[in-house]
């Protein structure tokens, strides 16, 4: 029995001065991830310091927007939705939703690509993933 992804209403996102560039890019259909310029390592989630060195020598760089499902679950609420960690090709594991598919067919290791889903009002879109 299939469980189609619902189009549940998404709450507004709390944009702050540090994460604003991430969400500005999301409005343009681009997904960014953190890069520590001290170590050359990517990090998630975006923040104003390097979680490797604590310096502020960081920038947001564009991700390819593709990856695989590291783990997932389907919340069996009235409007079912699939919560997942997606491992991006850059290596970081991102807390997200898998959408636009039969939720009963989601599998660990499945290849996925980024999609942007509108949230409430003028709030920026959420970064989600769908099977390739």
């Amino acid at each position: 029995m299939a469980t189609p992804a619902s189009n549940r209403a998404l709450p507004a996102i709390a944009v702050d001065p540090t994460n604003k560039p991430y969400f500005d890019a999301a409005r343009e259909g681009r997904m960014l991830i953190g890069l520590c310029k001290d170590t050359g390592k990517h990090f998630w989630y975006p923040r104003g310091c390097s979680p490797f060195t604590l310096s502020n020598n960081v920038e947001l760089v564009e991700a390819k927007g593709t990856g695989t499902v590291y783990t997932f679950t389907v919340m069996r609420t009235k409007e079912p939705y699939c919560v997942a960690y997606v491992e991006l090709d850059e290596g970081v594991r991102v807390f997200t939703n898998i959408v636009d598919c039969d939720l009963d067919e989601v599998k660990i290791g499945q290849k996925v690509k980024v999609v942007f889903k509108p949230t409430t009002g003028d709030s920026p879109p959420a970064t989600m993933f769908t099977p390739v």
Partner: protein
Amino acid sequence: MSINGKAYIVGAFEHPTRKADDKSVAQLHAEVAYGALQDAGLTKDDVDGFFCTGAAPGLGPLNMADYLGLTKLRHFDSTDVGGSSYVMHVGHAAEAISMGLCDIALVTLAGRPRAEAMATGTAPRSWGVNVPDDPFEIPYGRTVANAYAMCAMRHMYEFGTTSEQLAWIKVAASHHAQWNEHAMLRKVVTVEDVVNSPMVSDPLHRLDCCVISDGGGALILAKPEIAKLLKRPLVKVRGHGEATKNQNAGYTDLTYSGARWSGPRAFEEAGVTPKDIQYASIYDSFTITVLMQLEDLGFCEKGQGGKFVADGNLISGVGKLPFNTDGGGLCNNHPANRGGMTKVIEAVRQLRGEAHPKVQVPGCTLALAHGTGGLLGTRHGSATVILERE
């Protein structure tokens, strides 16, 4: 320095209510504090150290200390890492007592999520304002249930753990809860009952989840000279360990918990090993929580938790590691959505020989209590204490 032998748990009290329609949260704090002091044979004016969490009403410990009339305080601590905080408070209280910062410490927990009809596990919740991870998790419907379910899903994928094995944890808890007159769920359930209960968040069924209950509990710790003057059996704090685990900058690994670090710290301080433990209180927000913590604490190899918990191995009188003999959070009580307090209380009952006769571990002298607070799948605080009957 070590806290081993520097403090004793001299009072413990679990509120009998599971639905507190007619009591405020502050009132519940007062009732559990009074209960624990009565148990110890002490009064509120003996208390010079006070421990609660940010979940207590007010600013840290200030409003509760005022409400309770605690006027002799010279040490307080409101460390909050969610449900495991109260296990951690035992360690912190022992540290404070060992340093002479206080002589008699009171730890309280109370709450009424059930009376307030809170959707504890299935509604997205933030821990506050300006939380930096919220914009990257809350819009995706992060809930307590799905943050644990994703760990279960990955554990099944990596190690072949099954729903039936997880179900054995609930079955064991229900075998214990049948003897607890205060337990919310006293009916003994089978593996089939668990796996046939409605799916909440794959692969966790309704019966893989803990109860939502009101109430609370309190503990009193005291320095050895005082503990030995009191009439209650002596329960000594032997060791404590704490740790946090988080997403590790995006390189998160959901196959283990912070117990991997808090456990060895507690065992080292106590000078014992998992094999020495006769009774274990293991945080049971969900069945998967128990399974992963048992592995991480060293009761079995990583990945072997499913086999370890199967076939009644956690049932008192049946298996090798009796756990949560009050029925735990899975069947008895998870007051204020925080199970660490009741974990310590049941360990104290076992060491005193005051557990229900049907679940009492004969000659129980060494017990462990362990908690996971926050979310297993994002960021959590782990706390382990090892207690000994002297």
